[in-house]
């Protein structure tokens, strides 16, 4: 049975509805309200995961899907578009938020819960999902803002001085990014006369180089800033260590990845030629992102600061994959993108596991300062094991997902003849290992230096908080061991992502003609349907 394409909107509508619903009880007694919001959030996250899983299954069966909101025909109304890449991202973000939920239940303080932590989870999810499935450039901007606003609130929830200070930087620098996105969308309309991404893809091919370059430049800065790529990453390390650890873990799996996803979505679709001509630029950005990120991690004194810098560093690998996405090589066009997607998924799993593990330590010991921690391996063997596997996965050791990603990217960059960036990635991989060893050794090895403050519940040992990490680590290992199915999956995703004709055809077959004139011939089926 084919479901109605309206289900495509569920990843947005469901969290929004439940979030809005849980805001209805603002005048209720705080404790009861929080209890209700917890349940609603759990419900929403679970339902979202179910929907995302279903969508992934569906798209693998039936190929890409598109849906016109309000049945306004394609270039005029807003399109939502689902292909394997989108569905994978929906599923990953759904999974991460679902796994973070029990951790949040266990560790979030009543104050933050009262200030609306749980509805905000739903709104963040809505923003991310909306940014994933949209097929309209301006709509992408809107959902970026939803995501951003939800993240602002989550970041500053609780309002401690460090949160506020990090928050201001985060907000202002991200606003610069979304400003560029807005301008990019505006210019796209101004020059191409349309906002629908399929339509843009059609018309962008005819646009002169200058127009392409301006739009691409603006979008690159916008998405790059969101992804914390090289010159625009400052917001991340100044803010990620400040909120509650759950929030950091969630952010690491969602926020920067939305930026990376947008790059993956937009560049092969709009600028296939620029991917070749701008390859040096992209690879330089990728290399610098890697190096700066990992060097930053070297100098960090606390768990979450260190891990935050690693987020940046790993983004560089994904950009490297994007840089060689369309390079011809023995592996075929698009293989670089496939591996970048694989790396993205790997990074989401592993980074979240690390931040959850580190967050549990931080919550339990009352500090994340490496020089004060030590010797936890004996009291928390399970937690230590999970952290170790995740750390080595991040450093790219076999048999984890990190190895497959690293190996594949190395092969594909070598095959594309991009030796310098491959060398940089190898070097950064070494630095990552050094840094992860340092992190692991200072937390878990050596003599115990600090005993946990009295009266603190030990989240590190609770079932609710270790299970999510365990699942994440197990998934990472599973990808590493059963690599071929995953490779096939991301290859499908990449081949759909670079298939511009397929995208356009799915959105509206009549757009494929090279239209300089208004596509007014496309009359709406809406006029008949909407007649009631």
């Amino acid at each position, binding site marked *: 049975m084919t479901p*109605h394409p*309206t289900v495509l*909107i569920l990843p947005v*509508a469901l969290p*929004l*509805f439940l*979030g*809005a*619903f*849980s*805001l*209805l*009880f*603002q*005048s209720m007694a705080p404790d009861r309200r929080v209890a209700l919001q917890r349940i609603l959030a759990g419900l929403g996250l679970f339902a979202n995961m179910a929907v995302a899983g279903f969508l992934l299954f569906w798209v693998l069966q039936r190929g890409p899907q598109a*849906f*016109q*909101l*309000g*049945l306004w025909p394609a270039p005029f109304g807003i399109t939502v578009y689902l292909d394997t890449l989108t569905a994978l991202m929906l599923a990953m973000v759904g999974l991460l938020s679902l796994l973070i939920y029990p951790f949040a239940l266990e560790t979030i303080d009543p104050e933050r819960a009262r200030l609306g932590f749980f509805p905000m989870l739903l709104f963040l999810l809505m923003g991310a999902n909306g940014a994933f499935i949209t097929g309209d450039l301006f709509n992408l901007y809107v959902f970026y803002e939803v995501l951003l606003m939800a993240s602002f609130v989550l970041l500053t929830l609780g309002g401690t001085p460090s949160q506020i200070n990090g928050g201001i930087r985060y907000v202002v620098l991200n606003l610069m990014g979304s400003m560029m996105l807005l301008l990019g969308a505006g210019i796209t309309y101004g020059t191409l006369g349309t906002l629908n991404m399929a339509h843009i893809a059609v018309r962008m091919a005819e646009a002169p180089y200058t127009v392409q370059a301006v739009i691409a430049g603006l979008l690159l800065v916008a998405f790059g800033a969101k992804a914390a790529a090289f010159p625009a990453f400052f917001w991340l390390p100044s803010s990620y260590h400040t909120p509650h650890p759950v929030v950091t873990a969630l952010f690491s799996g969602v926020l920067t990845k939305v930026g990376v996803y947008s790059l993956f979505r937009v560049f092969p679709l709009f600028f296939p030629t620029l991917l070749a001509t701008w390859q040096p630029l992209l690879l330089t950005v990728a290399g610098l992102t890697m190096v700066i990120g990992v060097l930053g991690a070297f100098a960090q004194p606390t768990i979450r600061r260190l891990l935050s810098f690693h987020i940046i560093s790993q983004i560089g690998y994904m950009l490297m994959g994007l840089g060689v996405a369309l390079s011809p090589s023995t592996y075929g066009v698009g293989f670089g993108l496939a591996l970048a997607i694989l790396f993205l998924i790997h990074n989401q799993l592993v980074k979240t596991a690390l931040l959850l593990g580190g967050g549990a330590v931080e919550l339990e010991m009352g500090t994340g300062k490496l020089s004060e921690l030590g010797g936890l391996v004996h009291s928390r063997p399970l937690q230590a094991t999970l952290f170790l596997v995740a750390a080595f996965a991040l450093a790219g050791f076999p048999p984890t997902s990190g190895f497959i990603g690293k190996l594949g990217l190395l092969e594909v960059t070598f095959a594309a003849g991009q030796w310098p960036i491959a060398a940089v990635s190898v070097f950064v991989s070494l630095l990552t290992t050094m840094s992860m060893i340092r992190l692991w050794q200072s937390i878990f090895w050596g003599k115990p230096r600090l005993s946990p403050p009295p009266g603190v519940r030990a989240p590190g040992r609770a079932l609710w908080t270790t299970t999510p990490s365990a699942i994440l680590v197990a998934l990472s290992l599973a990808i590493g061991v059963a690599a071929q199915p995953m490779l096939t999956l991301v290859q499908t995703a990449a081949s759909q992502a670079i298939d511009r004709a397929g995208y356009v055809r799915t959105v509206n077959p009549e757009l494929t003609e090279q239209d300089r004139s208004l596509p007014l011939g496309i009359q709406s089926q*809406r006029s008949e*349907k*909407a007649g*009631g």
Partner: protein
Amino acid sequence: MTEIYLRLVDRILTPILLLIAIFLFLRGHDLPGGGFIAGLVAAAAIELTILALGSAATRDRYGPWLAPLLGIGLMVAVTAALIGMAGGGFFLGRWIQFEVAGETLKLGTPQLFDLGVMLVVVGMAVTYLLRLSEAAETPPPSTKHRETRP
């Protein structure tokens, strides 16, 4: 003196502004106006009350409505969008037409959606204004190192 003056303004202007808001809202689909503008005007009306009576009195007057306003607004908007799903499309307009005094009136989900927009705008603006006014009415915690530079 100024207070009485403000009270008077509040008594007269606030209802007028609220009426204008409703008017702008209703005509919004055909003429300049609509949910945003109406919401902003309504917020301005409430701000006037805050200025005139202070935040506590304003809270007394609108209090029970304000807290869940955002939720209600969002719910209304989402519901309006979801109703459209019955016809096979998110945001699909559904309309009811009827004749009142010779005029064709049409009510539809877009207008319901617009109502949601208006409620959210009012809710947002008033949350800020009310809270900030409250804060402004209490003295800051420590004024010791307040600097005198203009």
